C-alpha cells in the first residue's frame, strides 16, 4: 500500500451511494477509516456485488499490504502471517505478530503426543491484561512413514484447535498428512529444488499454503517462487534457512535482504512471509542446555529481524516467555498512546482508613500494579501520577517524577476528603524522593516495595 | 615464457573456406595472424556465434582490456598478453593521470589542467601527452566534490579517475559525470558492495585496493558476482619493493598461470612514497614512476607536471611500448630543414625515426638549412641498413627526381652519411649527381660543411 495513499484515491472508486451499510455516515468517512486501517474492506456491502467487482479489485491493489498475507487454518481457528505494510515498525505498524509453532514428531507414542499437544495449546502468560499464547503445532515426520504421519496428524487434529505446519520433504508422507487434516489449511513445509513439482501438486490440490525452502540460496528461492506462481499457487511462505552457530550472520543477512528487496525494491517474487526455524539449533553437537539457550536467542533475533513465523522445539517456560513478550512488544502499534489517564482509582471498597498508594501513568506500570493489587484483594485508593507515560525509574531518571508533581496530584485528587489519615505508600524505586515528598505534600511517606508483587506482604507488615 | 595458443586450436574453430574475405588468403594463415595479435577473429564474416565466443575467450588476452572515458579522448589500458616485451609486445601504453584535489582553489585547478593539456611533445612521429586527471575528494563532502568536478569538466574532457573512500560522494559525482565512464576508486572490503552497485549502474570501471593479494582476489570475485568485470588492481604493498613484487606476481600470475582474478591492468600511486628530505621527494616520485612503468604499471598518477620529470618518463613509456618486431618509421620523402635556397646542400639519411630524430635535431642545433632526403630502409638505422644493403641507390635517384630537387638547387652535389661511403659510386652512376661522403656523426656536419662545402 503506498504510504502516501489519500482517502480521495479510494473515494473515487466507491459506489458513493452513502448507503451507511458500513455503519459510517458516508463513503468519504469509510474511505478515510479504510486508509487508516480502522475498518475492513468487506464492511462496504455494495462493493461485493459483481457490478463493482472491478472497483473492488482496484481498491484492493491500492490498500493491499506489500507482503502477501497467508492464512493457516484449523477447522475452528486461523492464524494470519505476513500481510505487512512496512519494513520498519516505526514507518507505520506491524500487523500480524510472528506465529510461534512448537514441534511434535510422528514417532511419539499417542499419549505422549496428546500430552505435548495439550501443553502447547494450554501454554499461556498474562501480560498487561492480555493472555499471550502459542499459535501453531509443527508436525514433523521423523519416521518418513506415510501411515505413521497420517495417524499423528489425525491425533493432533482431534486434540487441538491450533492450526498445523506439516513438516516433511517426502511428498508421499505429506499427502497422507494432508488427507488427514480434514477441513483445515495446514502450512505445507516444504517444497525444495528436488520435490517442488509434487509439493506444488499437493498445495494446489488441497489448496494449502506452501513453504519454499532454499537454504542460503536466494536466487534458487526466487526461481522456485516464480515456478510456483506459474503453478497458480499464490499463498507462499519463504524459508532461506536458519543456521545456528557461525551461520547466524548469513541467516540475518538472508532475512534482511529478502525483506529489503520486497519493500525497498518492490521485488514481487520475494514479497511473501518469512519462516524462521530456530529449532535447527538442536542439530548441533554439544550440551542440551546450550542448544535450548541458542534456540531461544536465535528466536528472539528472528522476531526482530523479520520472521513472520517460527518453529521451535523447547516447550520450557523460561525459553518461550522472552519470545512471546518480545513478539508482543515488537508488534504493538507504536502509534497507540502508551499512557493511561492520570487521577485516582479505587480498588475493592476502600473507606476513610484505607491505604493510599501512587504509581505512574505508563500503561505497563499501571496495569502491573493494578493486577497485583487485585490479586491481593486489597481495598485502597491508587493515585496515578502523570509522568508523560514513563515507568517509575525512567521517570525518576528523566526527572518526570518529582516531589512537586506528587504533591500537586494529591491536591487535585481531593483524596484528603476521602481518608482521615495522611500516609501515602510510594513505589520502592522512588525511595530517593521520600523526604522531598513529605516536605512538599505534608503527607507521611511509607517507602513501598521495589516491585508491586511485594505489595501484599508490605501492607500486612507495614500498614497499621 | 607465456604459453602461446597454438594456431591449430584457432584453425579448428574457423570455417576453413579459405574465402580470403578476412583479408588473409587461407584460414590457417588467418589463424597465425590471430595468434600474433595481428588480426581479430571478428574479421571473419562466417564465424558462428559459439565459434566467435569460443575464439574470443581463447584469444582474449589474459589481462582484461579496460576502456575509460568516451569519445575522442577515450583511453584503453590492459589487454596485455606477455610478461616480457621481447616475447611479443606490450599492447596498450601506460597512462599518465595528473592529480587534482577538491581542496585546491578553482584557479589552481584551471591552471593545472591548462598546464597538463598543453604539455605535448612531438617525437619520432608520435605526440607524447598526459592522458587523464585523477580527481580526489579530500574534503569527504559530496557537494564540494561535485563542485570541483564542475570546474574540471569546463576545462577538459580527458577521461577522469574519481577517488573517494565514501561511496556516497562517488554516487553524487557519477550522477554528474557518469556517462563519461570515469574510473572510480578505491574499492575496499569496507565498500565493495556499494561500489559494485555504482559500477553496475553507471557501467564504469573500478580500481580495487586490498591489503594483500588474497584480499584483492576476494574483492574481485565479489565484483564479478555483481557482473562488474572492468577492473584495475592497485598493487598491495607498504613499500616500493613489495609493490614491484605485487605487480610482477599479478602480471605473470595472469599471463603464465592463467589466474583469472589477477588478469587485470593496474593503477599505481608513485606519489605515495614517504621521503623526508624535501629535494629528493620529486626525484623519488620519478624513480618510482619509472620502476612502475617498467614493471607493468597501467595508470600512473603523477602529483604535478614538472617538465624535467615528465619528459623523461614519457620517453621511457614511448620506448617500452614500441613494438620490438617492427621498428618505428617515418614517411620517406623530402624534409626541408631551416630555410634552404638554391645554394644550400642536399643531404640523405634513412627513415628509422630515431636516426631522422638525431640528424634533424643536430642540423637544427648547428643552424644548418638543407634539403634532407629520407630514404625508405624499412625503418633501419644507417649502420644496419648499410650492413644489410637495405639502401637501394635507385630509390635515392627516384627521390631526387620525384621531389624535383634539380629545380630547387643550382648544384648537383649530394652529401651521404659517412657510414654509407660504400654506396657513393653506385649512387653517382644512377642519379648522375656528385656524391660527397659526409661525417660519421651528424654532430660533425657543421665542421664538414665549413671544410668541404663552403669553400667551393
Amino acid at each position, binding site marked *: 500500500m503506498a504510504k502516501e495513499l489519500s482517502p480521495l484515491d479510494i473515494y473515487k472508486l466507491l459506489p458513493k451511494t452513502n448507503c451507511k451499510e458500513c455503519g459510517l455516515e458516508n463513503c468519504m468517512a469509510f474511505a478515510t477509516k479504510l486508509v487508516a486501517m480502522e475498518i475492513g474492506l468487506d464492511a462496504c456491502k455494495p462493493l461485493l456485488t459483481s457490478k463493482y467487482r472491478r472497483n473492488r479489485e482496484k481498491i484492493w491493489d491500492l490498500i493491499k499490504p506489500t507482503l502477501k498475507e497467508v492464512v493457516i487454518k484449523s477447522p475452528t481457528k486461523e492464524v494470519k502471517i505476513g500481510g505487512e505494510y512496512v519494513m520498519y515498525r516505526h514507518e507505520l505498524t506491524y500487523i500480524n505478530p510472528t506465529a510461534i509453532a512448537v514441534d511434535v514428531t510422528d514417532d511419539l507414542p499417542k499419549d505422549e503426543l496428546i500430552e505435548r499437544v495439550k501443553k502447547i495449546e494450554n501454554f499461556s502468560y498474562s501480560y498487561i491484561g492480555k493472555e499471550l499464547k502459542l499459535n501453531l503445532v509443527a508436525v514433523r515426520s521423523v519416521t518418513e512413514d506415510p501411515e505413521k504421519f497420517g495417524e499423528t496428524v489425525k491425533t493432533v487434529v482431534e486434540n487441538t484447535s491450533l492450526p498445523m505446519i506439516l513438516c516433511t520433504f517426502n511428498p508421499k508422507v505429506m499427502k497422507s498428512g494432508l488427507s488427514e487434516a480434514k477441513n483445515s489449511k495446514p502450512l505445507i513445509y516444504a517444497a525444495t529444488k528436488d520435490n517442488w513439482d509434487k509439493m506444488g501438486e499437493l498445495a494446489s490440490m488441497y489448496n494449502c499454503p506452501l513453504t519454499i525452502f532454499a537454504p542460503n540460496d536466494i536466487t534458487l528461492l526466487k526461481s522456485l517462487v516464480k515456478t510456483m506462481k506459474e503453478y497458480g499457487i499464490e499463498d507462499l511462505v519463504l524459508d532461506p534457512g536458519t543456521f545456528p552457530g557461525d551461520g547466524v550472520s548469513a541467516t540475518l543477512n538472508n532475512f534482511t535482504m529478502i525483506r529489503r528487496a520486497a519493500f525497498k525494491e518492490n521485488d514481487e517474487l520475494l514479497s511473501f512471509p518469512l519462516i524462521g526455524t530456530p529449532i535447527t539449533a538442536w542439530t548441533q553437537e554439544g550440551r542440551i542446555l546450550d542448544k535450548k539457550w541458542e534456540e531461544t536467542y536465535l528466536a528472539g533475533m528472528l522476531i526482530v529481524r523479520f520472521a513472520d513465523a517460527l518453529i521451535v522445539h523447547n516447550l520450557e517456560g523460561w525459553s518461550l516467555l522472552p519470545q512471546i513478550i518480545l513478539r508482543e512488544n515488537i508488534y504493538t502499534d507504536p502509534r497507540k498512546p502508551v499512557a493511561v489517564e492520570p487521577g485516582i482509582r479505587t480498588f475493592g471498597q476502600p473507606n476513610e482508613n484505607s491505604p493510599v498508594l501512587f504509581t505512574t501513568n505508563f500503561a505497563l506500570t499501571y496495569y502491573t500494579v493494578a493486577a497485583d493489587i487485585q490479586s491481593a484483594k486489597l481495598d485502597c485508593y491508587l493515585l496515578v501520577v502523570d509522568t508523560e507515560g514513563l515507568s517509575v525509574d525512567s521517570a525518576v531518571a528523566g526527572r518526570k517524577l518529582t516531589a512537586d508533581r506528587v504533591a500537586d496530584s494529591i491536591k487535585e485528587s481531593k483524596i484528603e476528603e476521602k481518608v482521615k489519615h495522611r500516609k501515602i505508600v510510594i513505589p520502592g524505586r522512588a525511595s530517593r524522593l521520600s523526604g522531598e515528598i513529605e516536605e512538599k505534600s505534608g503527607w507521611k511517606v511509607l517507602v513501598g516495595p521495589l516491585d508491586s508483587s511485594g505489595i501484599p506482604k508490605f501492607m500486612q507488615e507495614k500498614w497499621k | 615464457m607465456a604459453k602461446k595458443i597454438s594456431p591449430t586450436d584457432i584453425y579448428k574453430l574457423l570455417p576453413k573456406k579459405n574465402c580470403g574475405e578476412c583479408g588473409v588468403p587461407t584460414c590457417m594463415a588467418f589463424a597465425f595472424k590471430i595468434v600474433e595479435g595481428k588480426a581479430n577473429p571478428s574479421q571473419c564474416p562466417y564465424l558462428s556465434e559459439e565459434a566467435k565466443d569460443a575464439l574470443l575467450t581463447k584469444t582474449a588476452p589474459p589481462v582484461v582490456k579496460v576502456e575509460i572515458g568516451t569519445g575522442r579522448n577515450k583511453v584503453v589500458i590492459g589487454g596485455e598478453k606477455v610478461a*616480457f*616485451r621481447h616475447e611479443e609486445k606490450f599492447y596498450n601504453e601506460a597512462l599518465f593521470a595528473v592529480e587534482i*584535489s577538491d*581542496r*585546491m582553489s578553482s584557479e589552481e585547478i584551471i591552471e593545472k589542467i591548462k598546464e597538463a593539456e598543453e604539455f605535448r611533445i612531438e*617525437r619520432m612521429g608520435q605526440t607524447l601527452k598526459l592522458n587523464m586527471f585523477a580527481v580526489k575528494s*579530500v574534503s569527504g563532502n559530496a557537494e564540494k566534490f561535485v563542485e570541483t568536478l564542475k570546474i574540471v569538466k569546463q576545462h577538459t574532457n580527458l577521461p577522469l579517475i574519481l*577517488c*573517494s*573512500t565514501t561511496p556516497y560522494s562517488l554516487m553524487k559525482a557519477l550522477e554528474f559525470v557518469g556517462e563519461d565512464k570515469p574510473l572510480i*576508486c*578505491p574499492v575496499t572490503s569496507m565498500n565493495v558492495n556499494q561500489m559494485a552497485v555504482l559500477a553496475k549502474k553507471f557501467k564504469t570501471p573500478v580500481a580495487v*585496493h586490498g591489503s594483500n593479494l*588474497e584480499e584483492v*582476489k576476494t574483492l574481485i570475485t565479489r565484483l564479478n558476482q555483481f557482473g562488474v568485470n572492468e577492473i584495475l588492481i592497485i598493487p598491495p*604493498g*607498504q*613499500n*616500493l*619493493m*613489495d609493490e*614491484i*613484487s605485487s605487480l*610482477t606476481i599479478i602480471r*605473470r*600470475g595472469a599471463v*603464465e*598461470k592463467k*589466474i583469472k582474478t589477477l588478469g587485470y591492468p593496474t593503477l599505481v*600511486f608513485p*606519489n*605515495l*612514497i*614517504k*621521503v623526508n628530505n624535501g629535494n*629528493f621527494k620529486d*626525484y623519488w616520485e*620519478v*624513480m618510482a614512476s*619509472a*620502476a612502475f612503468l*617498467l*614493471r607493468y604499471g597501467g595508470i600512473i598518477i603523477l602529483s604535478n607536471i614538472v*617538465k*624535467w*620529470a615528465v*619528459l*623523461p618518463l614519457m*620517453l621511457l613509456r614511448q*620506448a*617500452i611500448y*614500441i613494438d*620490438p618486431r617492427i621498428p618505428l618509421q617515418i614517411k620517406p620523402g623530402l624534409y626541408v630543414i631551416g630555410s634552404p635556397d638554391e645554394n644550400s646542400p642536399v643531404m640523405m639519411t634513412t627513415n628509422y625515426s*630515431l636516426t631522422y*630524430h*638525431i640528424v634533424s*635535431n643536430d642540423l637544427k*642545433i648547428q643552424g644548418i638549412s638543407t634539403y634532407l632526403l629520407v630514404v625508405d630502409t624499412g625503418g633501419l638505422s644507417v649502420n644496419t641498413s648499410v650492413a644489410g644493403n637495405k639502401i637501394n641507390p635507385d630509390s635515392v635517384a627516384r627521390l631526387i627526381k620525384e621531389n624535383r630537387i634539380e629545380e630547387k638547387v643550382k648544384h648537383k652535389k649530394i652529401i651521404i652519411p*659517412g657510414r654509407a661511403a660504400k654506396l657513393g659510386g653506385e649512387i653517382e652512376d644512377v642519379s648522375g649527381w656528385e656524391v660527397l661522403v659526409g661525417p*660519421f656523426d651528424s654532430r660533425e656536419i657543421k665542421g664538414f660543411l665549413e671544410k668541404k662545402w663552403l669553400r667551393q
Partner: protein
Amino acid sequence: MSSIPISFEKYEGEIKEVEIGATKTEGGTRSYSVTVGGDKYLPLYSFEGINPNPPRIAHEVYCYHAPLPGSLFNFFGDLVDNPVEWSREAVNKFKAEMVNLRLTDAFSIRNETFKKEISNVIEEVLQAVKVPLLITGVMDIIEMDDYRKNNEILTKSAEICEGEKCLIGPVYTNAFQEIGKACLEKKHPVLAKTNMDVNQALKLNTSLLNLGLTNKEIIMDVTTGALGYGIEYTFSTLERVKIRALRGDKILQSPSIIFSSESWLARELQEEDKLETEKTGITFEVLTAITGIMAGANISSSLHPEAAKLINEFVNNFFNEPKQFITVEEWLKTR
C-alpha cells in the same frame, strides 16, 4: 588456483660473481674490492629471493674532452681538465665506490698526444685513489684502425695496473685476443662489448672462454642505448641474456653493465637554460640506470654524482631499507 604461486620458474643456472679491485693480500693496492653478480633470481624479484650482491655504481672520469652538454661542464668546472684531481674529488667528495677511467674515444684517439699522457694518468690515479678501477677505451669504433689503437692502449693499461684487478675493456667480437691475453696474464676482468644482440654476446663470451678466461672474469656490455635513444633494445637484450643465463646457458652466466652516462648525449639536453637541463639530465641518467638495473644490469657506470646518489638510493630500497609508502586512504586525506 587458490593460493598465489610465489615463484614462477625454478632456475638451474646462476650468474657467477666477478671481483673488481685487488687488496694488498691479493697483490693489489686497493683498500677494498667490489663483488658484483651471483644473481640467483631475476632482478628485483624480491618475492622469489634477494640476490647476494646489489648493483654497484662506478663514477666516470674522462681523460679527454667528451661531447658533454654545457650543464655538466659547469658542474665539474676545471676538474674536466685534470682526470687525477677529478678522480680524487669523485672518491672524497662524491663518495664514489669505484672509478671508471674513460681513457679516450674514436675522435680523441686520433690526436696522438693523448696516448703518452694516458699511461701517466693511470699511474697517478692508482696512487691518488684506493678504490677499485674500471679502465675503459674506445666505445664508439668507427674504422678498423680504431680497433688497433684500442688494443694497444688497453694492453698498455693492463700492464700498468698489473695485479690491481681492474675491469678493462671494451673488447669486441672481432678484436679481443690481445686485450684478452693481457688481462688473463695480468689478472684483470674483461668488459665484453656487443651490439644489443644475444647471439653476438654468446659469440664474444665463447671466444673469451676459449682464451682461458672464466665467467668470473667477464662483465657483459650489450651496449647502452640512452633513454629515448634505443634504451628499449638495451632493456630487452639485458632481459633475454639474464633469463637465458638463469635457465642454464653457461656461456652467458656473467654479470652485465649499463652506461647511464650515455644519457648525457641526448639531444634534448643541448638546450641552454642551465638549471632545467641539469635536472632533466640527472633524471635521464637515473631512468637509464633504473631501466638497466630492472633488466638485470649489475653495474651502473654513471657520470653526474647527484644521479649516482639517487641510483644508489633506488638500489638500496630493494636490498635493505625499503622506502615506506603512505596508504591510499592517507593519500585521500592529504591536500
